[in-house]
């Protein structure tokens, strides 16, 4: 575990990207290949299956520390991270022999799958006593799942590409899809290709937000414009007679969307489509909220499938007749895609239409009408662009419509987790309904660090009541809340549900009485 611990400390002790990359390169040049595989897995969100519940861990920590249960809970609320809380509360490690290797530790842990509670307890207590403080914290992190160290997948890829002298895109592709760190060796992981694994998706090409004017992009004739749909990005693969539906987060969605999987059977083998997963019925596109009902459900029933049928709005073709098409220009891929889609019988796979526009002004006009097309704005893609891996600047842009916004009063606050632990950063906002305030949205992000500190100070000094971790705050601060969409909802007291609410601005210039009213919010429903 020493090399992994050193890597973690190096990453944790710097805010410089260069220093982080250097630490990763050092690790990938020196560490045991088996530890490297596990590290790649952990840092790209492939956490080991959770075999020990947080309840069990807390119980054992209560016994070991001699503290009361309520105290352990209070500490957890303050620290905001269970793994860290436990490592801070446990007695100092007794003896520190040579630390076990990372892969050894994880293999032992996964070996507990069929073990009884006593064996799990013995395993955990043994390591709590033996591991050095940092290692103990990391061990707890492995037990509890989450693993964030401020390292993006991009950084990992960069370091691996440098150490193993390969193209970044090849590494990104090698790491994509489904693989088990326990069952794969480093060589196989880094040099794998789709011929061995038919399910393997291509890395998604992601667009940046267009900040300037579209006319700055050059001639409109060099660009393809499409609607930016309000669904989720998905990759649909048909290879060797099987269909695989992947989300952008590289989660296999086959179980949740059997209707789409079935519809995709008619695709010829060796086809990979990039598109937007949406709910669409005979009347057209349905809302994101409808899609959410399907996303959460692993094995949807007949009724749900009938009520909320899924579809894919296809906008790119990545593979055709088993050939990687990503190197061809968008224009050529598009021609192929249109031919492919037009030959399909099922209405579940539809092409995402191109918006014909002779000038940028026409596109500005189209963008302003996005909401009436159930779209969030436009996508602009250069016609000669190849299909890249990951987020790249230059050829693909998302050009979203400006968010809807409303001025609201801060009413409840709760402490954040992780980096924001100890500070009140999770807010609930309200608007006026007569002379009462009614809550309508929660938002976490959008303030600068300095603003967060200021608001935190206000909250601590103006708490009216405490309910567990939640504080009721004197209704005084006004914020402009932005959101992408609004829908009627009977689950919320306000009668509306917002899509992507976040803080746009801290309105120091406004008094609470100047915030918006519920009627203003409901007026947006009709637009």
């Amino acid at each position, binding site marked *: 575990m020493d090399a992994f611990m050193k890597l973690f400390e190096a990453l944790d002790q*710097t805010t410089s990207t260069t220093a982080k990359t250097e630490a990763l390169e050092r690790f990938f040049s020196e560490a045991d290949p088996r530890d490297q595989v596990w590290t790649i897995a952990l840092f790209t969100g492939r956490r080991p299956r959770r075999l020990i519940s947080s309840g069990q861990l807390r119980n054992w920590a209560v016994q070991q520390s001699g*503290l009361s249960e309520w105290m352990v809970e209070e500490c957890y609320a303050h620290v*905001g991270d269970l793994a860290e*809380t436990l490592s*801070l509360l446990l007695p100092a490690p007794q003896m520190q022999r040579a630390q076990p290797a990372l892969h050894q530790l994880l293999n032992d842990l996964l070996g507990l799958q069929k073990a009884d509670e006593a064996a799990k307890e013995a395993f955990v207590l043994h390591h709590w006593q033996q591991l050095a403080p940092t290692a103990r914290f990391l061990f707890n992190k492995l037990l509890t799942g989450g693993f964030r160290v401020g390292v993006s997948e991009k950084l990992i890829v960069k370091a691996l590409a440098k150490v193993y002298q390969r193209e970044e895109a090849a590494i990104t592709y090698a790491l994509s899809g489904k693989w088990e760190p326990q069952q794969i060796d480093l060589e196989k992981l880094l040099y794998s290709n789709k011929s061995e694994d038919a399910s393997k998706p291509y890395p998604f090409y992601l667009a940046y937000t267009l900040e300037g004017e579209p006319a700055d992009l050059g001639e409109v004739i060099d660009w393809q414009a499409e609607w930016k749909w309000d669904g989720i990005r998905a990759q649909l693969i048909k290879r060797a007679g099987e269909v695989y539906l992947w989300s952008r987060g590289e989660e296999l969605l086959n179980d949740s969307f059997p209707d789409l999987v079935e519809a995709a059977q008619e695709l010829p083998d060796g086809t990979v489509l990039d598109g937007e997963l949406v709910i669409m019925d005979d009347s057209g596109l349905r809302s994101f909220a409808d899609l959410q009902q399907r996303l959460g459900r692993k094995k949807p029933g007949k009724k749900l499938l009938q009520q909320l049928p899924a579809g894919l709005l296809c906008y790119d073709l990545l593979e055709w007749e088993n050939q990687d098409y990503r190197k061809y220009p968008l224009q050529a891929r598009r021609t192929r895609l249109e031919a492919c889609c037009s030959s399909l019988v099922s209405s579940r796979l539809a092409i995402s239409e191109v918006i014909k526009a002779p000038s940028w002004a026409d596109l500005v006009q189209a963008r302003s009408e996005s909401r009436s097309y159930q779209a969030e704005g436009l996508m602009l893609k250069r016609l000669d662009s190849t299909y890249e891996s990951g987020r790249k600047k230059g050829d693909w842009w998302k050009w979203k419509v400006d968010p809807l916004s409303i001025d609201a009063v801060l009413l409840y606050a709760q402490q954040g987790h*992780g980096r924001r*632990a100890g500070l009140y950063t999770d807010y609930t906002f309200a608007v006026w309904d007569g002379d009462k305030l009614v809550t309508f949205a929660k938002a976490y992000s959008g303030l600068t660090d300095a603003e967060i500190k200021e608001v935190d100070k206000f909250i601590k000094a103006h708490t009216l009541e405490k309910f567990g971790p939640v504080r009721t705050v004197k209704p005084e601060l006004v914020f402009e809340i932005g959101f992408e969409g609004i829908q009627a909802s009977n689950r919320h007291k306000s009668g509306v549900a917002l899509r992507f609410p976040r803080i746009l601005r801290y309105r120091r210039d406004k008094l609470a009485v100047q915030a918006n009213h519920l009627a203003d919010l409901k007026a947006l429903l009709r637009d």
Partner: protein
Amino acid sequence: MSDLLEFKPQGIYCAAADVFIDPWRKVEKALITHAHADHARWGQQHYLAQADNALVMRERLGKDISLQTVAYGEVVMINGVKFSWHPAGHIPGSAQIRVEYRGEVWVASGDYKVEDDEFTPAFEPVPCHTFISECTFGMPVYRWEPQQKRYAEINQWWAQQAVLGKNCLLFGYSLGKAQRLLNGLEPTIGPIFVHPAIAQMNAALEAVGYRLPATLPLSTYNKKVHGTGVMVIAPPGAGGGNWEKKFEPYSDASASGWVQVRGNRRWQSLDRGFVMSDHADYPGLLQAIEACGAERVVCTHGFTALFSRQLRELGYNAREEHTLFSGESEQSEKSAEGEAG
């Protein structure tokens, strides 16, 4: 009969002597535990404090304040009430104030730490019936390792940066923390520069006999002359200022108890966070309370609710009292230093 010490809107009050301890509103007679801004506030008519605080208080509160000083252990009688100041180990000059009247003894701790930092007069337990204890870090996740280990880490960090051709910026409060850090630095690694707010406090303490390593004013740094590998000590409030630019490239760090929690450490967006506090950690608080033999404990500033509940579980008669001392964030120190520069 009312308590010997009561909690009034103005501060902790002794009716028998008609004086306040560390009052946060304007009063006539203020007995001061130490010179930090949330305890020694501006605007009191008369101050009474331990002698080491005199110059610091005059720097911070005005040259012309009415100030009487006492030595540690010296007794001052006011209206038949016996007052004395005993080392609290928090910062130079910090004291617990012992109050005795008709056989009853109360001790107001101010801020304290039990570990001897080998610079500040060390904490002495003072036997009493009722102990008014701070509990800034009254939560068991806050346990400090021996300070020698921290000094070693800081010096190692400094030496590493020197090899990398970088400077070090280390943030700590200008009164207390800064001097403690200076005292633990290994001066052979390189020259040490200090922010003016710290230089001012250094001078005030050196004048009453505290010994500190040689330092240079921040404004005199010249890369051509001094090179890299220098150490800069500055108060947290001065972070982000323009002066930082001329020390580039640098690695930055803070020394505080709060960075024990990783979220706090990462929140400050500095490279390093060294866990070092001038407040007692959780075991330290329990140890101090046990050592003074009090039956009754009044918990002020910090995790008061939590810590008093814990004390009651341990069999103490404990309660919490609200004060305006800044237990939760050490904020007032920061703002005071913002003013100082």
